[in-house]
């Protein structure tokens, strides 16, 4: 994947032609519709997993919002089925205490999740981030330099700097940063980052991901104890947050 995020043109608020909400609760579908009305032309609703898959296939929405507590099938199966032919972002609605479920859905190809009960503002922001990411993927490449909160990342020359000061990263730190930046706005699970950086290495250096992330933050964050660029999704993974 070679995503490029243009620092030159601040992304215009992205809009979706169509959003599909798969949820068996009519009230939640309504809340989601309300939250997204400013950014979507059309919100389609499906009350079951099968209906959702059919609707997704026929309408090819720009974003799918998928609730995990569906009566007819597991959210993971819906996700897996859609990913067989669709690349549109999938945002999952899940309950607390379901970190393992979130991780397995993200590993299956979901892009982000929001925990119920959610704030509509937060939810809207997450969906918008997915739309922006998806649309920039589809659009023409605009350069390989990403800037966010004063940090400049040159993906081609493998250079990171803040202001005039170059930042030296170890190869592993660079690989982690590149992995996160190329999936900016998307929560990557520990497993996904590990696979991307270490590949198939024997042994279990996975736990040291935390050590490398800590070192990376100390180099690139302006306040490492309050990270703004590489944020932690508790129990799930990490996400690179591009500037809004």
């Amino acid at each position: 994947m070679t995503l490029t995020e243009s620092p030159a043109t601040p992304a215009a608020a992205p809009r979706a032609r169509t959003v599909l909400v798969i949820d068996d609760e009519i009230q939640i579908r309504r809340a989601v519709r309300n939250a997204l009305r400013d950014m979507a032309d059309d919100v389609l609703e499906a009350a079951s997993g099968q209906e959702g898959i059919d609707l997704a296939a026929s309408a090819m929405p720009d974003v799918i919002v998928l609730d995990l507590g569906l009566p007819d099938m597991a959210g993971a199966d819906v996700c897996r089925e859609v990913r067989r032919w669709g690349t549109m972002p999938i945002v999952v609605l899940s309950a607390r205490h379901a970190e393992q479920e979130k991780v397995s859905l993200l590993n299956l190809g979901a892009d982000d999740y929001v925990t119920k009960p959610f704030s509509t503002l937060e939810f809207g922001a997450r969906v918008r981030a997915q739309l922006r990411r998806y649309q920039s993927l589809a659009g023409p490449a605009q350069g390989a330099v990403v800037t966010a909160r004063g940090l400049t990342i040159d993906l081609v020359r493998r250079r990171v700097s803040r202001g005039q000061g170059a930042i030296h990263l170890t190869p592993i730190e660079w690989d982690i940063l590149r992995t996160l930046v190329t999936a900016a706005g998307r929560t990557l699970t520990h497993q996904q980052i590990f696979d991307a950086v270490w590949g198939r290495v024997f042994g279990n250096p996975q736990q040291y991901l935390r050590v490398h992330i800590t070192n990376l933050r100390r180099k690139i964050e302006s306040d490492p104890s309050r990270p703004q660029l590489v944020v932690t999704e508790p129990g799930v993974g990490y996400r690179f947050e591009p500037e809004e």
Partner: protein
Amino acid sequence: MTAARARAWVLWLLLFALATVAMRLVRSNIDQAHAVLAYLLIVLGGSVAGGRPLGISLAGMATLAINYFFQAPLDTLSVAKPPDGLVLLAFLATAVTTTQLLALARSEAEEARRRADEVTRLAYLGSETLNAGTAEAALGAIARVIRDELRVDTCLIRRLVDGRKEVVASAGAAPRARDVSRLEIPLTGHDVELGALELQHPTPIAVDEPQRRFLDALGYYAALGLERMQLAAEAAHADALREADRMKDILLASVSHDLRTPLTTIKAMAQDGALRGDENSAIIEEQADRLSRLVSDLLDLSRMKGGTLHLSPELNAAEDVIGAVARQFAGTTSGARLVTAVDLSQPALFGYFDFVHTLRILGNLVENALRYAPADTPVELGVTTAGEMLAFTVADRGPGVPAPEVERIFEPFHRSPGARNDGGAGLGLSIARRLAEEQGGDVRYAPRAGGGSVFTLLLPACDPQAEEIA
């Protein structure tokens, strides 16, 4: 004397007589040594066939016969030459000794056979009893076998249950409380007392050595049976617990889902209204959040009590969890008062803990501090090490906790007298402490120098440098 023995006596005495007559007839042609050897053979044969008494009788008679018939002066019982006396003595000694040795070997063989029989029988009884369908049936069989074997009136097997010995198997007459003589043998397995075996009989019970061995062996089987009963009881109990746990999980999941769905809707709708400037909607949203927290707290508490809380401790950076706490409070109005203090001049601190639960602990401590501290004072969140532990501290300039209250603030539903009723159900600190204890840590309170409180979360520290980093 058995018939076989009697036949042996008759046969060998007859042989002795025949041999004596035959040798007497050819006396002029044989030497006394021939007679000695022939008699020795008869003594040996007699002792093999008829045992020690016959052997010794034959030896005695042969000695006399040798002296009388085959030593000069012939046909008298006198000994003329000393060497002849020596021959007689040697013959007698040899015959008696071999008879004794044969008898000894015989009795040892017999004893071995008896022991082998005993072992076979015990093994048979053991497999018989252990193969019985249930432990109770096996114990019943053991009791019957013991009663029959020892010929006592009653045999009881008692099992130790909660300090009392309950009869689990009995054989024979109804047990009596008095006018009976008893013999009790404790039953143990893996050095734990499991119960006892009790014999009852109207007359005193005497147990000889083989019977004692028999009792010991069957007592061992009985102990195995009791152990089996105990394991079965434990398994049944564990099954029941598992089922109860499963029901609880289902209940929790459904309560959690059924409450959360309307809360999600209420919150979303209210937020929508609040964004359009409706004050009432803002209050509804706030209260929905409060209700949602309460539901979460109650679910967590019941999960912890039910032991269904899942922990996954891993190597984590202290500043990572501090950053996550800061992020959690970043959106709230009071969150602006949260100050994080991480010493970036020092190497990062690491611990071995569950990230999500630790985030919850610190979140509860910070929330508690923000609630009680005056609105214009900061709440400081930092981390240091204390020996083998990480020490996260949450410090505020609130009123502090009076000494008598200190342990009570960690009890569920405890609220300090005079506390503002603004959202907490009094569960935050108790959940925090329990979650910390689950991870081998603790939450402690101390008054803060200059006024206020310091809550310290202790969790196991971990040094990733000590291990090789891939």
